[in-house]
């Protein structure tokens, strides 16, 4: 009797085994680490988590045997908080990959922890080009944009229009300094000069003193090497103090669509800006945005949130191809496969961790040109992927031999 039961059980197990695929299911845990209370809440925050979930859904991960779970946390724009969360996620919570992480200071700290724990870090929100330069790591993917690409496109366009002497308002932390350094390089290359700069405490609400110093410098262009509410306040206050009427030009080196929304077209019109993603770019971005808005209270996606979607999608493709999540194997697979999604088009992941894709130079529309909600930009130029980002040779990344 017992023998018969055992035999039946064995037969059933064999049958069951045969009906399953030859490989086991994979469970991955994604940690979305970003700003949930401070100046970068609107460019990242909870919508980044929703964007990552959209990627899981669109890829049909569950049907392919990939079980994805999420955790999310606020890094409060503090590098020590960020690295503590990352450490806990990797050590205790079984997180495999951390995504988003706006704020360059936090991103550099998280990159260090990720490398130490041999997991994967896919950054979308941070700007510093140091992440794929001196501090590059085999465990880092930098998806959306960086200070080099922003500076190259925006600064070059303004230099072409005759803005040769520059004064910088620089947010006093990793991102601001990287952005100023990258922009300075292009200003000098084009034969321009940097007449001065001021490091502003981050975050600040009053930029009038610094703008006054910029006005006094006599520079043709005041370059804003800052982001988020810092950028909004400096552009708004520049309008108040008649910087543009005084014959000077403002260069917002990093402007998100949420910043333009906060400024209003009346103040923001005519601003040149560089972005990796604009919702109204083509049918693919429009269709995706429609679905995105449905789960985010009608808010329009920033390039940061779009980058979270695209990076998670690329990661899942690699996990699916390997049927496993071994860090080195997934990283190798992600480098091997070209990146391809409706938001950023075609691109690739380089050895230094940089993802290259097209970048766009836009100009903010006038109130008369804008036809509806969030109809803010008109395209001036497309910078092809090969030219948009820093060449590997100039990286100073130890991984590039």
């Amino acid at each position, binding site marked *: 009797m017992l023998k018969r039961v055992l035999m039946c059980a064995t037969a059933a197990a064999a049958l069951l085994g045969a009906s399953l695929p030859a490989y086991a299911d994979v469970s991955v845990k994604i940690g979305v680490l970003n700003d949930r*209370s*401070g*100046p*970068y*809440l*609107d460019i990242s925050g909870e919508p980044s988590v929703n964007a990552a979930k959209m990627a899981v859904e669109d890829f049909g991960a569950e049907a392919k045997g990939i079980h994805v779970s999420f955790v999310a946390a606020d890094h409060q724009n503090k590098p020590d908080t960020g690295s503590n969360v990352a450490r806990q996620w990797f050590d205790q919570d079984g997180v495999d990959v951390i995504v988003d992480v706006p704020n360059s200071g936090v991103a550099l700290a998280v990159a260090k922890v990720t490398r130490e724990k041999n997991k994967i870090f896919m950054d979308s929100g941070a700007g510093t080009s140091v992440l794929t330069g001196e501090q590059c790591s085999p465990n880092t993917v930098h998806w959306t944009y960086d200070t080099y690409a922003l500076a190259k496109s925006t600064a070059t366009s303004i230099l072409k229009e005759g803005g040769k002497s520059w004064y910088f308002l620089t947010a*006093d932390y990793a991102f601001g300094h990287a952005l100023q350094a990258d922009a300075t390089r292009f200003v000098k290359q084009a034969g321009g000069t940097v007449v001065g700069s*001021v*490091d*502003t*405490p981050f*975050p*600040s*609400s*009053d930029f*009038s*003193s*610094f703008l*006054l*110093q910029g006005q*006094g410098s006599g520079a043709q262009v005041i370059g804003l090497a800052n982001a*988020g*509410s810092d950028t*909004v*306040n400096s552009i*708004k*206050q520049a309008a*108040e*103090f*008649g910087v543009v009427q*005084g014959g000077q030009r403002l260069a917002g080196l990093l402007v998100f669509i*949420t*910043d333009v*929304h*906060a*400024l*209003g077209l009346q*103040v923001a019109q005519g601003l040149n800006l560089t972005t990796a993603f604009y919702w109204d770019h083509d049918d693919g971005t429009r269709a995706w945005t429609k679905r995105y808005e449905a789960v985010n209270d009608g808010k329009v996606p920033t390039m940061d949130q779009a980058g979270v979607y695209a990076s998670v999608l690329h990661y899942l493709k690699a996990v699916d191809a390997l049927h496993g999540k071994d860090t080195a194997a997934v990283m190798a697979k992600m480098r091997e496969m070209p990146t391809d999604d409706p938001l950023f088009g075609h691109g690739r992941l380089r050895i230094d961790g940089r993802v290259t894709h097209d970048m766009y130079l836009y100009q903010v529309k006038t109130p008369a040109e804008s036809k509806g909600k969030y109809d803010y930009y008109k395209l001036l130029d497309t910078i092809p992927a090969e030219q948009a980002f820093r060449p590997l040779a100039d990286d100073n990344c130890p991984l590039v031999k």
Partner: protein
Amino acid sequence: MHTFLGIPTQVLFGQLTLGLINGAFYALLSLGLAVIFGLLNIVNFSHGALYMMGAFAGYILLQVFGVNYWGALVLAPLIVGAFGIVIERTMMARLYRLDPIYGLLLTFGLALIIQGLFRNSYGVSGLPYAAPPIFRAPLQLGFMVLPAYRAWVIVASLVVCLATWFTIEKTSLGATLRAATENPVMVSAFGINVPRLVTLTYGFGVALAALAGVLAAPIYSVNPNMGADIIIVVFAVVVIGGMGSILGSVITGFALGLCEGLTKVVYPQASSTVIFVIMIAVLMVKPNGLFGRAA
């Protein structure tokens, strides 16, 4: 060009004027805090959140009800002041007999809740609020272009601060108030409703914060975090001026605005910390603050 300490005088005057504007906000906010602390002995940590609510009240009044800036300047302090009165009656009144630390915890918790709620609904990028049309044209001061609206802020703040000081220190109403905090039992024996007096005083302190919020709306973006950014500085101002000293908080507010303005020229990176350095220095020499009475 003349220079002072190696700084061109033009730049110096410009920065001092801007410092004065920030000082105007510090003065208005620390005044409200000083009134509340001096008369109620409450460390009102929700003051920054109430300032932010003032700015939002102005924004909502304009967007939803079409009330312009001048209307908001009157209505927003009334609305937020009424909100403050509700808070005082329903929550704070229960804590007067306890250690002041409970009041501090309550108001701090309230601040976090209020800010969180606004952040949830409005995000952090800020909302635009235009200055009224008569302030559109900037003033040419010779050494700088001063937006007319900012000049108005200095004037408005000075008038409100002086009027408050006068009311509390020089009128019979103010004398009653001060007496009520000194010895509430004795004052109620004279037939004065002390709890109501306390409630109205708190409401007034809150209304001052809301007024500062409406004044700030056209300068800074209306932003849920605007109160959290400024409140710590304002507390330092109150401590430097002497907890509860009304004139002290006003003078210190303007003076520290000037110090901050100067720092922005000499060493900008330190401009967010200079006030705290001054606070430490003052406390080492005068533990009760510059204008504080010995405890």
